[in-house]
């Protein structure tokens, strides 16, 4: 119930973000943000996957239906994928997913796909800042409370 109370006060709203990071680039980039002590908002819960191309759209939808306010997918830069082209697969899938989000009444800006390399700790931190603020502006996930299947 406390969650719902929070929704009324937008400035107090702390977005819940689930982040899928590929093992080779983005997860390493997030680690580098740590070793470089670059601070960012603590709103993301990170799930390590081997490749951004292994992130099933079902994971993203499930997270959103269960109340995540945003989902982040981080992969290697184009051409740098450890598995040749997994990041391109992720990109294709994200474009499709954006259409589905619309039909659910969700803003496509709730799902972010970004390329972050192992050396881009600053970029990871910046992206987390930007995403947290962007999702905070969007407000709480509107379909989270309608999830009663």
């Amino acid at each position, binding site marked *: 119930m406390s969650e719902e109370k929070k929704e009324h006060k937008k400035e107090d709203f702390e977005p819940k973000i689930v982040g899928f990071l590929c093992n080779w680039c983005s997860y390493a980039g*997030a680690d580098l943000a740590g070793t470089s002590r670059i601070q960012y908002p603590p709103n993301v819960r990170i799930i390590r996957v081997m490749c951004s191309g292994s992130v099933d759209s079902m994971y993203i939808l499930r997270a959103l239906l269960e109340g995540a306010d945003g989902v982040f997918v981080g992969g290697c830069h184009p051409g740098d994928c450890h598995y040749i082209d997994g990041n391109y697969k992720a990109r294709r899938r994200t474009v499709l997913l954006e259409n589905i989000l619309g039909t659910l009444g969700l803003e496509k800006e709730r799902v972010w796909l970004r390329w972050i390399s192992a050396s*881009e700790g600053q970029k990871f931190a910046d992206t987390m800042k930007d995403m947290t603020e962007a999702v905070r502006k969007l407000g709480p996930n509107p379909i989270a409370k309608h999830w009663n299947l």
Partner: protein
Amino acid sequence: MVLVTINSKEYEAAPDETVLEVCKKNNIFIPTLCHHPSITPYSSCRLCIVEVTQKGWTKLTASCSLPVKEGMIIATNSPHVQNGRKILMELYLARCPTSEQIKELANKLEVQKTRFKTYTDPDNKCILCGLCVRVCNEVMKVKALGFAHRGAKREIAVPFQEFSHVCMTCGACAFVCPTQCINLSKLSPNKPVPLTSDFDAGMAQRGAIYTQFPQAIPNVPVIDKKACMYALNGTCKSCENFCEKDALKHGQEDKEIKVDVGSVIISPGFDTYEPPKGDSYGYRIFPNVLTSIEFERMISSSGPYKGHLARISDGQPPKKIAWLQCVGSRDESCDRQYCSSVCCMYATKEAIIAKEHLPGVDTHIYFMDMRSFGKDFEKYYDRAKDEYEVVYRRCRIPQVEQDRKTKHLSIRYVDDDGALKKESYDMVVLSVGLQPCKDLAEMSKILEVNLNRYGFIETDPFFQVKTSRKGIYASGTVTEPKDIPESVTQASAAAGEAAKDIAALRGTEIIQKVYPDEKNVSNENPRIGVFVCHCGINISGVVDVKKIVAVAQTLPFVVYADDSLYTCSQDSNEKIKEKIKELGLNRIVIASCTPRTHEPLFQDTLREAGLNPHLFEMANIRDQNSWVHKNNPLSATEKAIDAVRMAVAKASDLSPIHHAKIPVVNRALVIGGGISGMQAALSIADQGYETTLVEKESDLGGHLKEIYLGAQGEKPQVLLKQTIEQIMSHPHIQVFTNTVVDHISGYVGNFTTTLLVKKEMSPATIQHGVIIVATGGLPYEPTEYQYNKSKDVLTQTAFEKDLFEEKSYLKNLKEVAMIQCVGSRNEDHPYCSRVCCSEALKNALRFKELNPDATVYVLYRDIRTYGFREDLLYQKARKNGILFIRFEDDHEPEVTLTDGKIMVKTRDTLLRRELHLHPDKLVLSTGIIPQDNTELAQQLKVPLNEDAFYAEAHVKLRPIDFSADGIFLCGLAHSPRFIEESILQAKATGARAATILSKEYLETKGNVARVISRNCVGCQLCVEICPYDAITFDEEKKVVIVNEILCQGCGACCVVCPSGVSQQNTFTKRQIVSMIDAYLE
């Protein structure tokens, strides 16, 4: 041990600890200004006051100098304490109203403004805490600083207000000052010299203890003995008070270690050319003149400028940047006659990245010849020009001038029309060349190897890893300036040669670790143990570790949860093993740092305890939590609890994974019997492995048969003859000539190939573990420039043969013209063929030797004699009177025949007029084109690039591997290259092949995909998406099968599988979903 009560909670403390120390250790906040762990407490700032209750009465007292006593009752945040601190903070605010640090602390203690009168000097920042005086006296033992005057006039001062003669300008006082108010220039006449980071090209400062660079191996800090005060004076040692693990070893001395080895590889790398201070470019005098290395650090997102481009003089983003090429390359005046090979491309890259970081910035590159000779480099150059609008100007710049006021830089250059122009820039980047590393001369003396005339390691002209001393090999830029792919290739080649010398002893010094038998846990319910790490104070300084443990104990299947100071320490690992045995734990979750560094260590602990290593999950609560949320301890703790919750959820669903072992056929198949294929075969066979060499022609040798001259007098035909002899007499090499590959099946370690031998009825079938593709290239057959219409128009290959045979007509020729880039760098073949410039000059020089009076014209676009060839061929050719005429890309020469006489019409860009030449012979420098590789590429399931050469797995990091395991690539099949470069690649494939052939069996990776075949509907979506062809369709059973050896574990197949039967080990859908649920439910 004494028991004390702090804020109604009992804590254990050592008898010699102070209350402040106990509080800090237990993460209880107490503000301080005058406290430093290395310095005796002084209780001057009073902010650390706490309320102590003893014998029924209470008092406020400074905690920093208060030793703990048994039964002490302490309140750190009682209203009494808070009021006391607030009044103190107001007094500080009155004394130092402008200090940011004081304002920040006041804010933290909820003091907004002061009720007291502001101090007489409102700019004063000194709070008279005396930390500087104490650090100077106690730690540095210099006693340069002291207090002067009394009462309101009290201040920090040097004796007699004069410059101190004992001050070492070590900066310790400024470092410890809580309000950063010490100005060293008022204390000592000596200017402090900041320590700068070599890795950041001097653009960032570092401490006396520092990590050399972020990816250093081993990634541990080092002590700079030239700057460490303990090493210099025997003082300080302050660092020891901060390292909880007692890891600092000041007494460490350099040690001489003796190692018995069978071969040696030299790879110390290069230094970059340092433009001398005061030269005409103004480097180190004009702030906005940078070297390319400095610029590289500036544009690096992890560098000192975080990737933001800024002028050094004013921090403004530059609007216009110029790159000056060939600084310390191709320059006799600084004794660097060679070309550094890499600067053209890195300048292009930097110009592109500058545009990406700062859209709208103008980037101009001043160069002499654009040397984009590497694989796919020409396309990159074209993109820089066309897409990114990088401006290239062909002019060597002698001087940079600076406007004193604006610090703008200006350059004078000659444009294409010959006019002298001046252009102003915000920044100038000097593309500095590569030179031998500093200690190479000394190292070469110790190793007794020769250096060449440029100061690099001398190598055999054909075998460029061989030094002058047997058994010692060299690789990388230590032999010649070169790019990353060439360095990686040469490194593999050197490894192969070094391994060959000691092949007989392979594996004899390996000690296998023995693990206990694995416990079968498949019938057990999950029993999870959670171990939470403090990492000293790295984690527990922010995150409430005890709270995580408390929550973890309540999670499903968790039977044990505890915390430890360092989970990775040996005693903690012993404890994990004990607990596994004692409590029958069968899944382990460790909440600590990152699995990328510590997963293998913990998995080993599991194995030592008889558990399958994959029954393990890590929660990253340091790198991705405490280190990045240090100002937000409550949310960080919440995040850490969620991370543990998610890890436990995943762990409860983990099952053991057993790596399948598949035996390796220790034989190699080499396709192609040219010099590359033969050298690859020799490299493999010399290491003791059976090798089958297949050549489609009737004899070995390939295109080497047509090369007669070497640039430095070496003899390609002798090399060919010797190589063939070695092949034919080698006990481990089986040669098939007149043979083509008919069909290849299988996978790494277990290929089966059928060979079709011409004129024989039955195909031969061989089993092998690896494949080397050395199918070569083809010479371009010209259709332009009247080739085939006149016997006087010939190719370099034909001309070379005549030169070798010293045909009599050569002496009668008066004029010879050569046209470069025939079949290269044009629409049909957009790449550079790399060798034609050097081939032409080699032949031109030989011709001049035979006929010194003849005139030789070379019609070219860019002369690409990279590396030492610049000096050996280009400069030599110019000195020998060979005439170079440059033509523009869109003004190709025209060749006409009149009565059999040749006329070449070309526009000379230097004279800016049309020239008519009437050479007796016209020699075309034809390029190299790919073979028809399509069929074999399909058989091998490997890709080709846009130009139809084979495409390697990674241009820089895996230059001779295919992305398909067990298949390697060398020679002209890869891209155009010289004989010695082909040999390096061939030797390198030998080393790469040995990484597989030396194994008895291959082991599958842990996180491979697996298919529950009874549920597979045979839709084959996974077959299509797999980038490694690791999934095949079983036509009989109508289900798919995963080849676990080929599977690399990307998980792509699991996403496309509509029935969810394809699952990735340790990343199954159920596991990932359980993590999502654990967080959000």
